[in-house]
């Protein structure tokens, strides 16, 4: 198992080097800091979303749900739109980056907690209904967002549109620093929970029998998930391709691959494996798209396409078994 983790690490390091150095040419002094910032953003986002998805799948006891499927990205757009609506686009742009980031993360964490608690309570263990509710909730949030956007002055609407794309191309170093400051300690807390997560993954009754107090553990994990997803989304925008499907499947691809490469229920292996996998997909995917294929399509659209197919395959396989 650990050997596989080392191989993944090696792969990631190699890909990162290729991404930063490939075709840099004589303008490297200008290019390197630019590319390094992008790389750091990708690594941070890959780390946050992967860890969040592993936690989410453990506490909801399933392998096909991710926080994004449950409407988190749509929530981000709603918060963004409401803020521009209240402050005006110039007022919004005039706010200090740190303040915007803090507002974004705390609002999304609060709303995300409310949303997930509501969904868990309402669906009462009926998985299909839970997923369907999440997806439709995402549609509802998107419709409300679109509705508010239409109430905004058309000129201001441009502003919302320009900041509502998942973008690794224009990451502000300051924002990156804030995101790291929030998410790295959170990842560390998740890592410290790894043994407890193993117990929680056994299910409600066995976990209670082992003295794990599952309700409390789930609540803590949920808070960590919300902070991680919020930080990643506030950094680069929603991962789900605009106009694409109802959901983003990045986390799904990551955890599915992690389960294939390191088949274990132990979070001490699963968390690093998923995190490495997430970073490899983002950095590798971006390298291939940018350098090899010279495609203009954002990576998130391709992830959406591949992830959707994977989601269907997983659903159909589960039902046959």
């Amino acid at each position, binding site marked *: 198992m650990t050997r596989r983790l080392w191989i993944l690490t090696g792969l990631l390091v190699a890909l990162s080097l290729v991404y930063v150095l490939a075709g840099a040419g004589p303008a490297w002094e200008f290019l390197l800091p630019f590319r390094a910032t992008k790389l750091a953003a990708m690594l941070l986002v890959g780390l946050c979303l992967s860890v969040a998805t592993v936690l989410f799948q453990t506490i909801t006891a399933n392998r096909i749900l991710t926080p994004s499927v449950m409407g988190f990205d749509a929530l981000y757009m709603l918060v963004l739109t409401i803020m521009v609506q209240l402050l005006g686009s110039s007022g919004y742009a005039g706010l200090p980056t740190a303040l915007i980031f803090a507002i974004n993360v705390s609002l999304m964490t609060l709303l995300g907690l409310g949303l997930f608690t509501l969904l868990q309570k309402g669906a009462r263990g*009926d998985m299909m209904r839970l997923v369907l509710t999440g997806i*439709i909730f995402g*549609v509802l949030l998107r419709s409300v967002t679109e*509705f508010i956007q239409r*109430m905004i002055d058309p000129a201001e609407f441009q502003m919302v549109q320009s900041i509502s794309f998942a973008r690794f191309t224009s990451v502000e170093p300051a924002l990156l620093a804030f995101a790291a400051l929030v998410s790295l300690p959170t990842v560390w807390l998740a890592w410290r929970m790894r043994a407890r997560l193993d117990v929680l993954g056994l299910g409600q009754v066995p976990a209670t029998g082992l003295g794990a107090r599952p309700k409390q553990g789930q609540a803590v994990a949920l808070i960590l998930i919300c902070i991680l997803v919020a930080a990643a989304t506030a950094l680069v925008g929603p991962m789900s391709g*605009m106009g694409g499907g109802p959901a983003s499947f990045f986390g799904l691809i990551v955890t599915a691959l992690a389960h294939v490469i390191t088949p274990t229920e132990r979070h001490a292996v699963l968390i690093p494996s998923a995190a490495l996998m997430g970073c490899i997909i983002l950095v590798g995917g971006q390298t291939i798209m940018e350098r090899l294929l010279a495609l*203009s399509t954002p990576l998130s*659209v391709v992830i959406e396409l591949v992830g959707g*197919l994977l989601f269907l395959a997983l*659903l159909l396989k589960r039902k046959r078994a």
Partner: protein
Amino acid sequence: MALLGRRMSKLRWAGALTLLLVLALLSLFIGAVPVTLHDLLTDPQGQQLLLVSRLPRTLAAILAGGALAVSGQIMQILARNRFVEPMTAGAGQSAALGILIAALFFPATAIWAKMGIAACTTLIGSAGLLVLIRSLPLTQPLLVPLVALVYGGVIGAFTTFFAYQGDMMQFLGAWMTGELSGVLQGRYELLWVGAGAAALTWFIADRITVLSLGENAARGLGLNVGAVTAAGLVAVSLTTAMVVVTLGAIPFVGLVVPNIVARRMGDNLRQALPVAAWSGAVLVLAGDMLGRVMRAPFEIPVASLVGVAGAGVFLVLLYSEPRHD
């Protein structure tokens, strides 16, 4: 008793049609430029506005709403599931893909040929969904809409990919937001084709009703299941493609209206289809009027309004169904 019942329902229909007519008349006089009855009689410009813009727009709302509700009802029987509708389950996205293919590869062809391409891709997309759904177990009803939504999402992502490569994102976005502000004389007439296809299903309504009993029972009753399914599929695809081509995607009309109609009057389609058509027409027309009034002189697309209301109703329907494990 039966006679009384029939008279009552005739009376009801008269009331329903009057309501639709009143709404349509109101819709003629709502808009950025005010038109009064007086203008209509005296001012040629007012008459022009009415003929070129207001009347087509009103007709488009009625045709699209009715056709969408009917095709939603047919789709739900074909998919044997109440939570499926063409717009979000691959048909709408396939239509967009068809438009994109036509615009990218055959930019010079006539508009009719482009519509044909869109109708074909929609047919393929909807047929693909039915094949996929057939392989799902009947014991898991909520799995069907889930698969349908993700299937629609995958086709949507595929479309987005091509739109990006061809630098057509704005083109696609403009096509896909369902709204009626661009409807003018000469630019909505295809909806008659879509509405016609939906109306034709009334003639095979009884057969489709039999199909709702399940494939084996229907076959046992002597129904040509393949032919009826194909006919229903063509009608749904044609309708969806025409609406997406002319107005863009209007979600939830095909989902919410048939659900409510079926709850009140069951699956006897010969009775239910006209009611669904009427309800869809009223819903879209009222939504469009509300969108024009709420923030005049700007407009809110009917798709946004229907999206908010429809998603809410969907959630209510989802939770009033018995629990499925």
